[in-house]
């Protein structure tokens, strides 16, 4: 189990890195757009046009890593007052609900991408179809659901057979504040 977990963590981290490389490229393009406009009054057509949709793909790519590393903001007051077993029970419950959440979002996102394809929605300026980007986002969310499934199974294992769990994988805890 721990091995599969580590494997999903690495894959998820890779996607997040690729996503953020995409963001970096977007930043470079935006910077170029600004400088061209500022110096020569001739911006690159469509930079802002694609940024919204590229952004969506970037963010979706970060979600599996966030789930597989359990980096969601939680309030863990109660756990401090409970014995270790109680905390494990709470964490398992939270993982199951998170799994329900991601499965619903992934499922609905697939339908959303389909509806974008059927309706033929396009970007404003360059008239690029938007559905491929949403399909990519759906794939990322499906992978996110898988990653969360692994996390949930790990938690169940830790709850039911604590002796079989060797050590928890690293949990870096970044914050937005």
């Amino acid at each position, binding site marked *: 189990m721990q091995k599969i977990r580590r494997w999903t963590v690495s894959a998820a981290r890779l996607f997040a890195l690729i996503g953020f490389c995409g963001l970096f490229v977007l930043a470079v393009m935006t910077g170029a757009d600004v400088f061209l406009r500022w110096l020569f009054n001739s911006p690159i057509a469509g930079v802002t046009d694609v940024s919204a949709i590229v952004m969506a793909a970037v963010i979706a790519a970060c979600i599996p890593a966030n789930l597989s590393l359990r980096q969601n903001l*939680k309030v863990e007051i109660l756990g401090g007052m409970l014995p270790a077993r109680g905390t494990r029970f709470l964490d398992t419950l939270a993982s199951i609900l998170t799994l329900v959440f991601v499965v619903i979002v992934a499922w609905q996102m697939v339908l959303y991408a389909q509806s974008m394809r059927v309706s033929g929605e396009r970007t404003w300026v360059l008239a690029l179809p938007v559905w491929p980007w949403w399909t990519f986002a759906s794939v990322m969310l499906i992978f996110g659901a898988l990653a969360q499934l692994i996390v949930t199974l790990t938690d169940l294992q830790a709850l039911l057979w604590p002796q079989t769990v060797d050590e928890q994988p690293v949990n870096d805890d970044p914050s937005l504040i």
Partner: protein
Amino acid sequence: MDLLTLALVGTVVMLGLIALHVPIGVAMALCGMVGFAQIAGWGPALSLMASEPASTMANLDLAVVPLFMLMGSLASVGGLATDIYDMASKLVGRSRGGLATTTVIASGGFGAVCGSGVATTATFGRVALPEMMRRGYSPAIAAGSVAAGGTLGIIVPPSSIMILYCVLTEESVLTLFTASIVPAILTVISYIVAIRLTVWLKPDLAPHGEAVALSERLKGIAAGWRPVLLAVAVLGGIYSGVFTVNEAAAVGVLLAFLFALFRGALTVRNFLGALAEASASTAMIYIMIFGATVFSYFIAVTGGATFLVGAIGSLDVPPPLIIFAFIIVYIILGAFFDEVASLVITLPFVLPVILHFGYDPIWWGVINVMVIGIGMLMPPIGINVMLLNSMYPEVKLGTIYRGVMPFVYADLVRLVILVLFPSLTLWLPSVMR
């Protein structure tokens, strides 16, 4: 079940789930969805679970958050924090407790190129804390000034919390950034006053700095050109209209990257590290915003927020008292909840009340960010304090909490001033229009 009861039950269940360790975004989204389904049916409720994440992810106002996160990470990799710290120490480092003052000023300067308070704390935890301990500062004042200085990461624009607030309230990010300039300067000044008073009362807490030759000082000051240029390019560019907030963030990322590259500080490893660091906090903020919007739609269809506004509006108390009551509730909530979480959870209820009494949402945004800043220092979960303790386990939690108290008093005094004189906040945006 009538709609108000449904809203109440939904809110209670949501809070209960959060107390049971369920991630905040997940708890809000699930309760919002189930509640919405009771009113509009399951089909529409389930569809919200795609259309809301989709519009959150493609929201360009929010895209500024990952960009500013990345800029901060790259600035840290490129050694800009060390530059600005050296510069500040050459400016003010000589007096008693001068390095604590240096830390606060440098944190404020770094806050102008970094949107995160925790990142600012972690950065100066590495740069400034060991230096102060080596020079014989008491651990309390050393760690206290780093933890308090860290809050300047969100109080000085750009700030991820301000962007979050603006996205949730549909206010202009630029206006909130502008409005927070004067309060941010007040914060730095009040922290300096807090340090001076503390070392004046207890001189043994901090030694004098060493005298440095004028030429050395000028050299140190000049060495700080990189962070100054970055802050001027980003904030100056936004305020002068050369570019939009999004473009400024993109340009900031590029500049921070180039500085790190040309200084030779950038390796593939730490570049990827910076990307990973920024991406982790990004996904977290998105999931939370998404949950908050689904939940707020649920509250909207029940009419719960309208009811609450009516109820509070009919109370026979002066509005400033209600504002102070809100602030006290937020500070108490901050003891149990994460402060950002309490902002996200309460905004659907609190903002309509603020607007009902005719207060400016931009002003309330500044107050809200200040309250979050205080929460980052207050026990039991003061995130900055806990972070420093995890970086330096030999400095005990109790010591750091003792060290931040003078800064918390300064925060409270400043908060009262800002509430009583809204023009301190609203004057600058009004003249910059």
